[in-house]
């Protein structure tokens, strides 16, 4: 037990679970701290928070936090969360998913939960592979990268999850990294405070599965890549297309006021009661 407890400690569950399961240098623990700080800053009560997840390294997060926690099936965190929210709209839901979980098998649920603009926050940790199962490629693996199922290099193109979420109907979309942790804290707070569907993509290193196969086994190197390979929106505006080539943009891309699903549902119930045969 640390003699000096980190501030976030009061939100962690069962001291005996630590040290946690994630590899040295994995960024998921960094994100967990950021989420906890956001919950604290927003003044949410632990009893009102539901953390849900799918399957994968990121999805191991719920067991470590002292909230209502729901570790579901692969890709389905948002579908389970939809039921939770409908049953008890007072609950604040944070769904944490990996890139494979959210964008491959879970892609359909991401589209429709965003389309409904149901009030919850979806966090997609993007480490460019399926880490837990040994490092197979995912929809965000960069072209040419080596993974356990792309021994000759990835041939599939990727897509932009933030674009997808925005066009599907999310009312808040942002991208950050675990290197830029202060910025991430702010993004998460805004996302979680927002009434509506928020998506935050978080770039994170996976030294063990992805890094090792791509000459980046060192966690520090991977964090440096996040530092040097990304720019914020202000910087991006000033850069020429050649300069932006190969860089990933961080920032809040989308933040609009839009009717949330349960608001619509309430209106529906009002209409239904009027037309009901008494």
């Amino acid at each position, binding site marked *: 037990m*640390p*003699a*000096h*407890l*980190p*501030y*976030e*400690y*009061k939100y*962690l569950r069962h001291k005996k679970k*630590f*040290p*946690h399961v*994630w*590899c*040295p*240098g*994995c*960024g*998921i*623990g*960094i994100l967990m*701290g*950021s989420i906890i*700080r*956001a919950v*604290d*800053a927003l*003044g949410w009560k632990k009893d009102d928070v539901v953390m849900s997840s799918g399957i994968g390294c990121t999805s191991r997060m719920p067991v470590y936090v002292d909230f209502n926690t729901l570790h579901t099936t692969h890709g389905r965190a948002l579908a389970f969360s939809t039921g939770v929210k409908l049953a008890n709209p007072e609950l604040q839901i944070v769904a944490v998913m990996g890139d494979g979980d959210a964008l491959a098998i879970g892609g359909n649920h991401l589209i429709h939960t965003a389309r409904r603009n149901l009030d919850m926050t979806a966090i997609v940790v993007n480490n460019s592979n399926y880490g837990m199962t040994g490092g197979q490629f995912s929809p965000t693996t960069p072209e040419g990268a080596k993974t356990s199922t792309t021994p000759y290099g990835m041939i599939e193109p990727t897509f932009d999850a933030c674009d997808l979420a925005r066009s599907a109907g999310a009312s808040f979309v942002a991208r950050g990294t*675990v*290197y830029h*942790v*202060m910025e991430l*804290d*702010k993004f998460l*707070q805004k996302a979680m405070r927002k009434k509506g569907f928020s998506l935050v993509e978080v770039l994170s290193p996976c*030294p063990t599965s992805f890094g090792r196969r791509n000459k980046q086994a*060192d*966690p*520090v190197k991977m*964090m*440096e890549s996040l530092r040097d390979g990304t720019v914020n929106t202000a910087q991006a505006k000033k850069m020429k297309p050649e300069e932006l080539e190969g860089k990933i943009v961080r920032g809040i891309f989308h933040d609009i006021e839009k009717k949330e699903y349960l608001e619509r549902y309430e209106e529906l119930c009002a209409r239904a009661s009027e037309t009901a045969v008494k």
Partner: protein
Amino acid sequence: MAEKATAKPAKESPKESEQVSSVHIFPEWCKGCGICVAFCPKQVLEMGDDQKAHVAHPEKCIRCYLCARRCPDFAITVADEEGNIVREEGDHQ
């Protein structure tokens, strides 16, 4: 909204450098990833032979909190002048 938790002194006798340090590293949770050491703006930390992070230059610490925030393992705490573990005022809206 600042919350304070009073830091208790470590039971075992720490190295002298740690006694006055604002930064504390809990070796049982540290996995030796090196992130805190690499990105400390003041080079306060060093990797030890035991593959754990150590506080080498506590006097240089400016309490930026980046080591604690970037530690994936919750193995680092940063205290204020009075030794309290606080969240920064105004850090969050």
